[in-house]
């Protein structure tokens, strides 16, 4: 039940609510646990609450590592 997914903030509506989106579907969530939420931010949404922000730089660094790994694997095989 703890499976939470990253969703992007489209609009911050009040101090504690925002509209988020994933794959075209939109949702109203509570953002009171997030420091200074802004449109464009990715947040992890669980049970209707954003529980933490996704650090895009960290995520992108990881993705780069994966594409290097994939490329290296492709060369070898």
């Amino acid at each position, binding site marked *: *039940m703890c499976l939470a997914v990253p969703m992007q903030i489209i609009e911050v509506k009040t101090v504690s609510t925002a509209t988020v989106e994933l794959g075209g579907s939109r949702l109203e969530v509570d953002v009171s646990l997030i420091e200074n939420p802004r449109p464009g931010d990715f947040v992890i949404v*669980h049970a209707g609450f954003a*529980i933490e922000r996704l*650090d*895009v730089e960290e995520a992108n660094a990881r993705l780069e590592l*994966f*594409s290097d790994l994939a490329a290296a694997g492709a060369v070898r095989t």
Partner: protein
Amino acid sequence: MKYIEGFREPRAARALVEKLRLLGQSSLKDGNGVTFMEVCGSHTMAIARYAIREALPEGVALVSGPGCPVCVTPAGYLDAAIELARQGVIMISFGDMLHVPGSRSSLARARAAGGDIRVVYSALDALQIAAAEPQRECVFLAIGFETTTAPVAGLVPLADERKIGNLSLLTSFKTIPPAMDALIADPELRIDGFMCPAHVSAIIGADAYLPYARQHGIPCVVAGFEPLDILLGIEGLLRQIIEGRAEVENQYSRVVTAGGNRRAQVLFQRLLEPEDALWRGLGVIPASGLRLKKAYSSRDAAVRFGVTIGPGVEHAACCCGDVIKGKLNPAACPLFAKVCTPDDPVGPCMVSAEGSCAAAYKFRDIRQHAY
């Protein structure tokens, strides 16, 4: 969405599996295998779905821990919830709980018998339900680990703010670190490394595991829930073993910080206090639960309706207790897939999507071909 799909890239997964194989060969040739535990149920599910256990090098075993909140909720809690439903209270719950067996019945059966039980996906829906029927009492089935405790406890200040007086919580919140303590103390278990949960760690922070690494010398790696995250987590654990280190490594730095979510922690401190809690399979673990503080007792359904949550009676042949502790592989339970299936579950581990038995059942036909 690249922040999901990117972490499932199959070619990178194959490369990582190959790396693990090489690491395993160089390190474990003395015949001593290692056993890592994934503490969290969402890891268990992903590991089964992507057949990660089958892709591990020989000598590296991965066992599932107690990290499915539905599975560790004792039958007595369900009994109390079923009793409240009988009294005509509106029960609000996440869907997983409906089919979990209590001592004699389940919420699904209570519902079939006329109980008013509403399933929600967002904790916020509880506010709407309670606001729509102000003359009726509404009780939220407040179970979960730190990840779920944050949104569900968050209902209390929101209900106060909106002057919704008819909503209370039947709490059985649990915290992960004390359960890890209990597992370490169990002489029958040998755990060489912990794969620490993703989103529990988002709340409590990676530093919460320092005692396990420093005092107990057990390597800890915080890992995300996608297959590449999990493979990196295992790689991190294996490297620590090879290099003789025991540290807390954060492989999920895109979400988890060292200190965790400060706002959630402040919320917990304001509303909740520790209590000894009964875990299905693990028994009573000191200070492993969280209950509402006295100042919020009007939101505490147990106080409000004078119900006590007893231990309850669990099915004698169900081995969930040993499954939860990582001692027994679900398929080794004599009831697995014969008497006990997701459609007709005997124990909670077969109910919850994250339960070890349900994960093993759903993905029982997956073999190595994935890699």
